[in-house]
């Protein structure tokens, strides 16, 4: 038991895979995190908040004690072209007496107050851990409030302990479907070019960037879900001819439900990286079945590629050969990142996700080089161990992983929801390359290695 040597706990070993073409043993995933392992995951509530909160003109009430509301107040970079209501964090701020006597009355009164003050069209009410335990009937309180105020008041079943972050995505998707499912807004004749774009949260205006492509090639974006979404637009989502899904981890479930309920088929896309962006544009254009749209897509891709390839080539010359570790939320993002690093001539040596799915881990196994370490629900100790063993130069991750990378004198890319710069599409591919160059080639690393403090 040496605290200075990074250790892997026995029960965690099944969640770690070393890519070996002769070994087809599957990785264990989709389990509850191991107690005491310092998982980097969050909770059900967090998942719901990520997916739902960007809906701009809804009131988002967190029914629970203050912490859940405090730590999620306006921390993400989702932008709005309209209302800023979503940037407020409303909490019923439950106290000890509420826990003992129940919080339903307080919640009902809170909804009354906020409806009187802000006249929202929709209120989402998120449940938290304690609410699930003390047995507040969220559904009943919300139904009553709907009748009283003649607006939508939608419960989000996101008690923190009741599953994982993924279940939170589902809870949010359930709430969104609940909202969308409104026959009054259904039209009979659909536009082939009208579609929804699921699983983009408009971080740093990313929805706007890809929508500029859609507009140029003649596609008609009805809704991005949930980046820059508004209630009135979401009600029209059912009229799309097709859906495309960016963040699969959070939104595949919604896509499936929309297919089931409204008969809208979907395809997965990824607008991260040059090649994936081009492929995704082609795919979206093809889904419209419109040859003019398809031709325009080709024109746009050709123009953008011409514009951007020389820039990326320049960055490639500065970054190639460096080794990369990836630790992100979902598998789809990890896959996309590996391709993006390949475009820069960089090799991925460690790749892990918090909540990747079995199919995604299989893809990761396919596209990585021999010896690559693949991790499910990793922790700081495992990241430290494998990044060290594989001599990674750079880590891509979230806010919690950043200081670990820096303490190991490793470059770092912020690929999280708090960033203030877009990483999507052609423009994002340039930003990404620029950030990689900026961090990998900084003068601080050599100095750190030379002057690091030793007792």
């Amino acid at each position, binding site marked *: 038991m040496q*605290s200075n040597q990074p250790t892997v706990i026995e029960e965690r070993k099944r969640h770690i895979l070393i890519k070996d073409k002769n070994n087809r043993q599957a990785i264990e995933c989709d389990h509850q995190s191991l*107690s*005491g392992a310092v998982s980097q995951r969050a909770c059900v509530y967090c998942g719901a908040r990520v997916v739902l909160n960007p809906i701009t003109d809804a009131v988002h009430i967190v029914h629970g004690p203050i912490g859940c509301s405090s730590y999620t107040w306006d921390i993400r970079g989702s932008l709005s072209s309209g209302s800023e209501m979503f940037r407020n964090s409303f909490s*019923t701020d439950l106290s000890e007496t509420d826990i003992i006597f129940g919080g339903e009355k307080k919640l009902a009164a809170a909804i009354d107050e906020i409806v009187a003050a802000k006249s929202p069209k929709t209120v989402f009410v998120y449940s938290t851990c304690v609410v699930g335990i003390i047995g507040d009937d969220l559904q009943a309180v919300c139904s009553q409030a709907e009748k009283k105020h003649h607006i939508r008041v939608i419960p989000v079943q996101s008690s*923190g302990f009741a599953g994982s972050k993924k279940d939170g995505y589902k809870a949010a998707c359930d709430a969104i479907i609940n909202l969308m499912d409104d026959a009054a807004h259904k039209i009979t004749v659909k536009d082939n070019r009208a579609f929804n774009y699921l699983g983009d949260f408009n971080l740093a205006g990313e929805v706007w960037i890809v929508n500029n492509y859609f507009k140029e090639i003649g596609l008609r974006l009805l809704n991005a879900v949930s980046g820059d979404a508004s209630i009135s637009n979401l009600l029209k989502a059912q009229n799309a001819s097709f859906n495309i899904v960016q963040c699969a981890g959070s939104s595949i479930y919604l896509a499936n439900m929309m297919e089931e309920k409204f008969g809208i088929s979907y395809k997965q896309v990824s607008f991260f990286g040059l090649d994936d962006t081009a492929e995704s544009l082609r795919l979206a254009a093809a889904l419209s079945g419109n040859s003019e749209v398809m031709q325009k897509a080709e024109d746009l891709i050709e123009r953008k590629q011409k514009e951007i390839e020389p820039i990326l080539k320049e960055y490639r010359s500065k970054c190639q050969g460096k080794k990369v570790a990836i630790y992100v939320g979902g598998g789809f993002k990890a896959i996309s990142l590996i391709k993006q690093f390949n475009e820069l001539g960089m090799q991925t040596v460690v790749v892990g996700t918090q909540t990747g799915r079995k199919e995604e881990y299989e893809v990761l196994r396919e596209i990585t080089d021999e010896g690559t370490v693949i991790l499910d629900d990793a922790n700081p100790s495992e990241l430290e161990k494998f990044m060290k063993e594989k001599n990674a130069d750079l880590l891509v991750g979230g806010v*919690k992983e950043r200081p670990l990378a820096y303490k190991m004198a490793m470059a770092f890319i912020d690929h999280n929801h708090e960033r203030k710069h877009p990483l999507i599409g052609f423009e994002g591919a340039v930003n990404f390359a620029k950030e990689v160059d900026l961090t990998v080639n900084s003068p601080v690393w050599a100095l750190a290695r030379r002057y*690091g403090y030793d007792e």
Partner: protein
Amino acid sequence: MNKKYVNLDTNPCKMCMPMGGSVAMKGIENSMILMHGSQGCSTYIRRHMATHYNEPIDIASTSLSENGTVYGGKQNLERGLSNVRRVYNPSVIGVLTTCLAETIGEDIKGIIDEYKTKNDVSNIDIIPINTPGYGASHFEGYFHTIKTIIKYYNPQKAPQNEKINIIVPQLSCEDIRAIKLVLESFHIEYILIPDISETLDSPYKSGYSKIPDGGTKADDIKQMSGAGATIEMSLLIDSAYSPGKYLEAEYGVPLYKCPIPIGLTGMECFLNILSEISSVPIAKQYKKERGRMIDAMIDSHKYNGEGKAAVFGDPETVYALTQLCLENGIEPLIVATGTKATNLCDLLPLENAMVLPDTDFETIHEYVKKLKPNILIGNSDGKILKEKENIPLIRIGFPVHDHIGAQRRLNVGYAGSLRLLDEITNTLLDIKHDGYRQRLYNQFFLKQGGA
């Protein structure tokens, strides 16, 4: 009512008890935290602390799920303890509860006691700490955790010793380092708790260690009940949570209270206590520093006189900052905290200011619109006021996550107060100087039609 809505907190100006508890635990040497609850609590707290301190913040969770919730979390807690020991090999584990663990009525002390009988844990202290998220705010959680740790290590009175206990509120790491230097200058042997000065602001080392160096030593904490006196740097903590009060009531350790040593009176109060306890006169060095501070205050007084401030954050910080404003002729228009802080209004009997304990940022925002301060002093959560009302924000307190370096900024002592004051004054100067030519041209030349 101190909040705009009766049943809603809108944009919180406080955090939860486990957050305060985590910061306090991080100041204990070779320690790890195991948070008993759902996975999200530890993750959110780690994220919040990591952006402020820019240090790896490892906090384990027992990852309670539906099963654990229905049948009890004993198995999770036991497994969590074993795994934390295996990977981190700490000498202290603080087991902090959360809303969930408290609501399902987990007997963490009982589970830990049983765990101790089943495992060889003679070389490790496992401290149960009750921090229900709904119990109070991070401010109480912080002091309650310190008190619980002291209680744990002092089951009976320690042999009488000459040491002085110093209980500090949540300050910057640089502040703690500065306070230690002051103590040393009085030749005082001290036990400072919690000591985050190294643990949450560690130098870059060529080998990474999962648990950072530094922190208050368990052997020192064991002597606190026999210490010569306690200095508790907090006027705002309720006595029920006060570690100093506990040591006084239980073991008769004389208690001295002072505010955070920011500003002339705050620092003087601290120095006077140190001089009285140590029988060492206040050194010439401090009188000189004080003279320099007064000199600077005179230099800046007219600029500061135009300052109208909104001050917010945890009550202790807010109190000290308000005193600094008052000493310098900066008018505190709004003094606000999300914590209940029942004695804040008594301690700050300000006729022309809105003193708002137990409030939220929505309410602060309303008053900012109404009273129009020209400077905001508080934590990063005030960024919404800065953005919407276009008023500069001096970042101090916790969390500061949109600027770098809060953990190493000096705010205490004469030097720190002066650094902070200069930052405030220069911000006020910028307001006046930036664009004054255009402003006056527009106001007077254009209005009169020109020559």
